[in-house]
């Protein structure tokens, strides 16, 4: 049985990869063989089915391997259920993340190669093809963020997680995130501006992974919902530092704001429609902020005039006294 699972994982991965390739190739193959729009459909459907079947097979193989491994473990391991569950789940998702990362890197690489080939070819690139390539490029960070969200959630809910303080330069964290999203925003004709006040805010003592994770989630949302502008502003007072992520999007209705940080909540839940995201991002972001002794709040205006916007405010303690208490 165990011998069968490894090839199943591999075959599942290959089928999923084949499905993605079909979807990527749809506009090219469709254009060559069919002159009408619906001619594109069969390959898209086949690609979709292959992708789902492949991922399903790989996931089932992983789950099967895990189940067999647990059954074969000695009884003594079951005596510390909470800790071992959390640790095993985290390791399992790290492995899953790594194994999915490889085909994803291949797809992203092939997409960049394809773009370069098309740009080098004489004549203008077809708008439909360009949109498709942009969409693949945009979905790549989404996918990574989803995987990281799940890992952080598992870590967060582990009973033994501690909050380690390290020297962090918040300006550098914001700069890294702005760099990552500037090109994503500009492809959608949006702008990101960021600044720090004071310009040299200096070091704070915090969990840098937590800050990076929270702000990445906020900027990712802001870029998605903004009409044209996203602003990220970093400020401080003697005890705390603040990161404000503002966007000029349509705003969030008052009836929704109270649920925004609920686990698994998305506006589609109210409308009983299919969810477009996991609804974990903001829940994780607020939980991380509160675990670090800070908070995450939101202020939004959904009025139809030009003033509509949404602003998230992350406040975290600077822990400057940690410097004197021997934090490395």
């Amino acid at each position: 049985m165990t011998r069968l699972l490894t090839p199943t994982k591999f075959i599942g991965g290959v089928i999923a990869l084949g499905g993605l390739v079909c979807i990527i190739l749809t506009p090219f193959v469709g254009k060559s063989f069919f002159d009408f729009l619906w001619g594109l459909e069969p390959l898209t459907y086949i690609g979709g089915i292959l992708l789902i079947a492949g991922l399903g097979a790989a996931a089932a193989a992983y789950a099967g391997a895990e189940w067999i491994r647990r059954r074969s473990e000695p009884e003594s391991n079951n005596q510390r259920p909470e800790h071992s569950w959390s640790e095993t789940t985290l390791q399992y998702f790290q492995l899953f993340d790594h194994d999915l990362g490889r085909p994803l890197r291949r797809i992203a690489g092939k997409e960049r190669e394809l773009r370069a080939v098309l740009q080098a070819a004489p004549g203008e690139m077809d708008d439909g093809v360009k949109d498709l390539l942009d969409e693949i490029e945009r979905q790549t960070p989404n996918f990574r963020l989803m995987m990281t969200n799940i890992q952080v959630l598992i870590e967060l809910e582990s009973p033994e997680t501690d909050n380690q303080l390290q020297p962090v330069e918040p300006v550098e964290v914001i700069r890294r995130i702005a760099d990552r999203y500037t090109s994503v925003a500009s492809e959608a004709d949006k702008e990101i501006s960021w600044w720090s006040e004071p310009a040299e805010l200096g070091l704070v003592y915090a969990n840098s992974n937590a800050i990076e994770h929270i702000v990445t989630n906020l900027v990712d949302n802001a870029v998605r919902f903004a009409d044209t502008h996203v602003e990220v502003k970093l400020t401080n007072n003697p005890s705390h530092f603040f990161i404000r992520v503002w966007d000029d999007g349509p705003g969030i209705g008052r009836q929704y704001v109270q649920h925004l940080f609920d686990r698994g909540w998305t506006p589609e839940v109210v409308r009983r429609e299919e969810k477009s995201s996991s609804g974990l991002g903001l829940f994780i972001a607020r939980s991380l902020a509160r675990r670090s002794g800070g908070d995450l709040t939101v202020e939004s205006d959904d009025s139809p005039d030009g003033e509509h916007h949404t602003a998230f405010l992350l406040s975290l303690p600077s822990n400057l006294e940690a410097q004197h208490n021997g934090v490395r």
Partner: protein
Amino acid sequence: MARANSGRKIMIVDDESESAILRAVRRRLASEGWEALVIQPAPGHSVGEEFEAAALWSIEEERPDAVLLDVRFGEHRDDQFRGLNILSEIVEKWPKLPILMFTQYTQGPDRETAVQGSLQWDAPVDFIDKLASPDEVILRLRRLIGTSPESIPVGEQILVDVSARLVYIVNGEASAPALDIQGMKFEIFRELAATWYRSPGELVAFSRLERYSDGEDPRASLRVRIREIKDAIGKAMNTHFGPSELILNVRDQGYRLVPPKS
């Protein structure tokens, strides 16, 4: 007129340097005018200590301006974090050499292990996701290397020549200086261009730009100079820049450069 960043040598140490994702990065390095030197294990050979020594020897020989280094070299347990061994060797031998670690472990416990196990706290080392766009790789390398280039390309049509203190308008192969941008106006534009080069979204606060203004109301004087810069560059490019083009005033906080789309 100096070519932007000419002569920068970036060494890539990766067992997958022929992968599509690294080819895209190498293409972007070339478009930046940087030379990419690739060190990879010979086909069919292990990526063990021999390769580690070969990578260090190449750094000694070539003296690159920065190293783009993979963390993981293959699936064998000994090779999974081989890059971290190479990293700690480099940090020990050349503590000032900028290193960008190319990995999928930019966050989480593995990064912590890497940081704690390999680094002196002030070493110029940064981590970047293998899925990051080639543009992001360039931005991180620019910051790690640190120095501003002699000439800063702002999009495809504007070039700021820092040593000659001139702003050039590039039109195909030809380029002509925008002679109206001199003195304080040049300093303002250089400051905006240098900030944009380091981080395209970062705005330059009024306080940083007002030192290039004078008079009783430096903010108003700055506003006039910004308008004059936009007019001068617009005239040289046969166009007119509106309020949200070329230099943006961001919500009364400062200004930010937006390169014109060609």
